[in-house]
């Protein structure tokens, strides 16, 4: 035990004696570890954020759409051939599925401009057309004014509910309610303002939006659109039953034969989470690869510096052996030194990873969380690299002949 402590002291002494050289040697390891820690922090943060954001959907809600949701590549042509989901589908689901409490249909168009006589937003506003039930299924809270209702929908009234980002641009310091805005050249009356919602996954602001009745939306953006249908079951226990009813109904409406594949996609909260987790695994594996590569580079750095160190200290090794150090002791001394060196690199990397994660939080706007297992793994891996690449120089030191070694300059 005291031998181990002596070796630790010697190793730290070497580091202190050559701080710049040691730090330069460690760059590879620092980069590798910083990559892993920050990427894991990002992924972990994203995961928590996704779970949180998806919880808006509610445990008893699922979505039906023409396009598959989630992440990853898919065959665009195959899905384009599918029939559009319509207002009639929406109504049918509500009427004929006993386990369904509420159905909302919505569609959206990004990159829109909203203007008043005095001001104009950038062409980045997300315009959503939705049925009044969207307020419940999408978990929307109106901070000021009201959401549109059945009458607005049926009559296709030109009313909008604005997100805070849009309000801030068009009506700074004013009450927007009752005012008129223009979208695609048409006038709309502001009837409500959404509560601040922040951003989804830290990248898309959820407040940069304008909501209007679906009918009004379709009259501007065209009727030939496939709607996204949100279905809310009467209770979380009936979610699967509601899904089954909806599936049967839509298959019948689309005249699918038994054995045909569904020509629509159903997404639950859970399936979103699942596909996100798949994505995050891919990112994790990729960043792990980057990390391994930098660790190998760092390991070669350590190999190099340890060979230099052994050469420089040949005399010291000779003296130690003459005074009674056994081979194993010398081996342990230099292996410890390599491991400590690598661990210092790992620790700096972890620190930088935390720094990057913090920077990411600040830039991306969501909390990044450094998982402790990533820190532990990084430190274990860097000491492993130190050991693997430090063992050869250490073995060389251990084999030195004391007489020869003491004669070295």
């Amino acid at each position, binding site marked *: 035990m*005291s*031998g181990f*402590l*002596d070796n630790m002291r010697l190793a730290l*002494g070497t580091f202190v*004696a050559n701080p710049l050289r040691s730090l330069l040697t460690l760059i590879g390891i620092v980069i590798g570890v910083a990559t892993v820690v920050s990427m894991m922090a990002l992924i972990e943060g994203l995961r928590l954020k996704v779970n949180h954001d998806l919880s808006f959907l509610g445990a008893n809600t699922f979505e039906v759409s023409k396009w598959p949701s989630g992440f990853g590549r898919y065959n665009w042509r195959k899905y384009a051939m599918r029939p559009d989901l319509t207002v009639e589908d929406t109504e049918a689901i509500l009427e004929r599925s006993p386990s369904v409490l509420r159905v909302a249909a919505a569609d959206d168009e990004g990159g829109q401009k909203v203007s008043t006589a005095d001001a104009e937003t950038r062409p980045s506003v997300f315009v959503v057309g939705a049925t009044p039930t969207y307020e419940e299924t999408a978990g929307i809270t109106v901070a000021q004014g009201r959401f549109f209702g059945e009458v607005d929908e049926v009559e296709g009234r030109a009313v909008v509910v604005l997100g805070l980002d849009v309000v801030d641009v068009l009506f700074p310091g004013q009450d927007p309610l009752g005012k008129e805005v223009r979208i695609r050249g048409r006038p709309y009356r502001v009837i409500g303002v959404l509560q601040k919602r922040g951003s989804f996954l830290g990248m898309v602001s959820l407040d940069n939006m304008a909501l209007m009745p679906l009918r009004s939306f379709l009259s501007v953006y065209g009727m030939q659109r496939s709607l996204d249908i949100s279905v809310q079951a009467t209770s979380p226990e009936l979610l699967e039953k509601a899904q089954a009813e909806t599936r049967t109904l839509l298959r019948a409406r689309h005249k699918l034969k038994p054995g045909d594949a569904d020509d629509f996609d159903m997404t639950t909260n859970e399936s979103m989470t699942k596909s996100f987790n798949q994505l995050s695994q891919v990112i994790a594996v990729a960043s792990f690869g980057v990390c391994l590569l930098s660790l190998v580079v760092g390991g070669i750095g350590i190999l190099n510096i340890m060979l230099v160190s052994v050469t420089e200290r040949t*005399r*010291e090794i*000779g*003296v*130690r*052996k*003459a*005074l*009674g*150090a*056994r*081979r*194993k*002791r010398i081996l342990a001394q230099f292996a410890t030194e390599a491991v400590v060196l690598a661990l210092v690199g790992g620790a700096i990397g972890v620190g930088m990873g935390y720094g990057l994660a913090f920077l990411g939080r600040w830039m991306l706007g969501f909390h990044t969380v450094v998982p402790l297992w990533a820190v532990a793994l990084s430190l274990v891996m860097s000491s492993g690299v130190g050991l693997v690449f430090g063992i050869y120089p250490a073995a060389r030191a251990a084999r030195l002949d*004391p*007489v020869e070694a*003491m004669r070295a300059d």
Partner: protein
Amino acid sequence: MLISVEDITRTYVVGGETVHALRGVSFTLDKGQWVAIVGQSGSGKSTMMNVLGCLDTPSGGRYMLNGQDVSRMSDDQLAGVRNREIGFIFQTFQLLPRETALANVELPLVYRGLRPKERRERARAALDKVGLTPRIHHRPNELSGGQRQRVAIARALVAEPSLLLADEPTGNLDSATGEEIIRLFEQLHHAGHTIILVTHEPKLAARCPRAIRLSDGRIVDDGRGEAVAFGSRREAVG
């Protein structure tokens, strides 16, 4: 009898040629004796010193040190013997430059596996014995040559070895400082230490009670220091 050397040979192969550094050396040394090993360069005295110091193993013959046959031991076994039995004092001091005097003196005790507290106490005592107490926290480059050699002597003494082995201990010192170191050796001898001093300086060998002269890998003279150092059988300088 502390040391018994019987017909020791040592050959090296250098570039395909066999060099006979020792051609059959035998002598014995009792506890408490002080002997100088003298000879010109190439006489085999460095090889002798390495063999006696367990830094090298003989090609033939037998070397008994304190009751153990060390001529056939493995590297690690020899390391253990060096640690327990031998205190080295080198011409170039061989102190670790980054360590303080105290840490340097502690070193043999580190490899003996002593606890730090006991190491420190014994190292302080050894440094006190050589009169360096005020300098224990200095590094070698902050010490004079004489002080460095005193640190080295303290390091040789600290583990209480049965043999002190000094290789040209005054070779890198001016004559006044060298004289101080020789006086220190005399004190150590009177205190009962067994000392082997390897040197090429006759004046130094003459101060020892006994001297052995090596030439061409053989003992050519063995007797009172003065007689051997300036004796008639001294070879001409090659």
